[in-house]
């Protein structure tokens, strides 16, 4: 019999990290046309050679990948094919009259009053363009007649670019090795690694397995806050997400007592100064951040050259 190991989850503090990214998305011809016309209170669908009509419009048939033949204007009325409650919103699957697919949107009605098969109609939002939210939602309309699909005439030029943003919050678990390393940095201002399985040099960051021997790593060891640059480059470009203004030196540093790299920064007066003074083999020391330590690599503000 397989015995479950006697281990438990333990609640510990996590490391908060954020990824915050702007985008410029390209919807393509069909979705771009749909988005361009929605501000005119027209719902654009795709008419395929097979006779199927898909709305909102798509470039390729979801059945067989066939190219769109023409764009059409589809009715603002349809049938509720399914629904659910998400927080305080009711989300429903709507099949517009004359169309062969369903799509999701907000249902403007009490959840309890709805039934699959309810006739619905679009409710338009004021002042919204280039977004499916130009339709505020769909509301029950039991008496509304069944709408007809119409030719679109000359469609508006498709919207080519849609600004978008994604902000992602994470709570990373440290695990026992990173946990102790950052505790040691916060409490004692020292950088501790673990010895390799067969030597005295420390692995930084510390880890359970030696990458080379695949055996368990050895005991903990404090490294110096001085070290030697193994690789360095001079950052002179600006980009979104950058944490300090260029120019500065990106350095991969092997701390004294360790055998692996720590990535950090060295201030540069100028590109020329950095070219002349910072190179593989240069000796550096950590400049600790003033004030209370937080238990992260930010507790080291930067490195600077020794005798540099």
């Amino acid at each position, binding site marked *: 019999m397989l015995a479950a190991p006697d281990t438990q989850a333990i609640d510990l503090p996590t490391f908060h*990290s954020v990824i915050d990214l702007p985008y410029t998305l*390209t919807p393509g011809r069909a979705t771009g046309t749909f988005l361009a016309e929605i501000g005119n209170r027209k719902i654009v669908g795709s008419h395929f050679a097979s006779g199927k009509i898909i709305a909102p419009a798509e470039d390729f048939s*979801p059945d067989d990948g066939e190219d769109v033949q023409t764009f059409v204007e589809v009715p603002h009325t349809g049938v509720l094919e399914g629904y659910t409650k998400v927080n305080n919103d009711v989300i429903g699957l709507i099949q517009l009259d004359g169309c062969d697919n369903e799509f999701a949107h907000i249902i403007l009605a009490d959840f309890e009053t709805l039934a699959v098969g309810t006739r619905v109609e679009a409710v338009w939002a004021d002042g919204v363009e280039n977004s499916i939210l130009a339709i505020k939602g769909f509301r029950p309309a039991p008496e509304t007649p069944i709408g007809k699909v119409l030719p679109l005439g000359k469609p508006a030029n498709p919207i080519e670019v849609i600004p978008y943003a994604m902000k992602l919050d994470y709570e990373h678990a440290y695990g026992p090795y*990173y946990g102790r390393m950052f505790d040691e940095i916060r409490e004692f201002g020292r950088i501790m690694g673990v010895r*390799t399985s067969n030597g005295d040099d420390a692995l930084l960051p510390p880890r359970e397995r030696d990458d080379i021997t695949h055996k368990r790593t050895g005991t903990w060891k404090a490294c110096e806050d001085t070290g030697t640059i193994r690789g360095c480059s001079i950052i002179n470009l600006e980009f979104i997400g950058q944490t300090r203004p260029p120019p500065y030196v990106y350095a991969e540093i092997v701390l004294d007592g360790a055998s692996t*790299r720590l990535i950090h920064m060295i201030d540069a007066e100028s590109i020329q100064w950095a070219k002349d003074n910072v190179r593989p083999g240069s000796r550096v020391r950590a400049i600790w951040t003033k004030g209370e330590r937080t238990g992260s690599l930010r507790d080291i503000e930067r490195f600077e050259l020794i005798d540099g």
Partner: protein
Amino acid sequence: MSNITHGGHVAIVGVGQTHHARRRTDVSQAGLVREAVDRALADANLSMEDIDSIVVASGPVLFAAVNQPEKWVVNAIGAQNKPVVRVTSGGGAGFAGALAGYYQVAGGFAERTLVVAYDKLSEGQLQYSISTLYDPFWGREFAVGIMGFSAAYWRARMDALGHTEEAAAMVAVKNRMNAIANPYAHMKKEVTVEEVLASKPLCWPIKLLDVPPISDGAAAIVLASEKVAAKSTTRPAWIQGIAYCCEADNAPERSLMLSEPLAIAARHVYRAAGITNPRRQFDVVEVQEPYSCFELNYYESLGLCPPGQAADLIASGATQLDGDIPVNPSGGCMGANPIGAVGIIRLIEAATQVMGRSESHQIKDAKLALVQSGGGWANLRGCAVLSA
């Protein structure tokens, strides 16, 4: 990996790529993929019905903010109800996708597999997105995509292996020149060594003209078994060996002077393909050079020259179009760099060479080609040998 020669023979029998661009505002990601797939199927004389399985390869989801894009892509290419997997491996995504497809056909699970790779880099933040491959605890906040890292180890190789700024500039000049004839490239401008050296430092020693463009693009290949290859073409490009290896991220013995995973992959692939003297045996080479300095590194890691002689090799002219071992006659990444697609683009360029079908930059009588690709921060590297 000792069994890599034991599967069935696999060939590339159809290829297609988009006209790559800095920004394609006329198509969505799915529309971009569709163009490459239509071209590859037409080239292979096939329709989607003939395809047994699909591999979709693209870079990190953060590049373009669509998670699980394969569900969108299969709709757009009419591949509903077929087996599909997505493979992602940073810059090596396309190559890793080809390897996944190769395994399916070599293993007898498919007669024909379509591999399509793409990235639409105009949509997101390239360096920031790439920086998220760093450990969030250990270095991400100081990361500069892979550019900071790549430049740092180029700087170290300058001292250890003589990979000078001039040598890398010659790579940039060669590839940018070659790209001018490539109908699918979008960066077509001749530059001089002096101009490369004088261009703006971005992450010195990497300068603006050492860096390829940022591109939107897709590329697709059809892989076929020996049994069905002839339906598509009388002259397939046979895959004589293919491998993709990794090394530990922050291991104590990681030197970063030679690319160790690439050297290991090359050893396996050369054994499978019977390569004992790469410089003499290969007619043409296509490498994925995210920055000019990497091509020098790959000359040595692939055994085209001994360590420390890459600068001499480029200076000798041997890797030029008319040299004895042309590298990147297509222009490589310098002509277009839709990152996730690049592994497939390099395979396409090498395949069309040994098929004798490169319209614009055919190397005369090319019979044997070497392809390199890779991803991660230099720790995932692979290569393949293609033959007529």
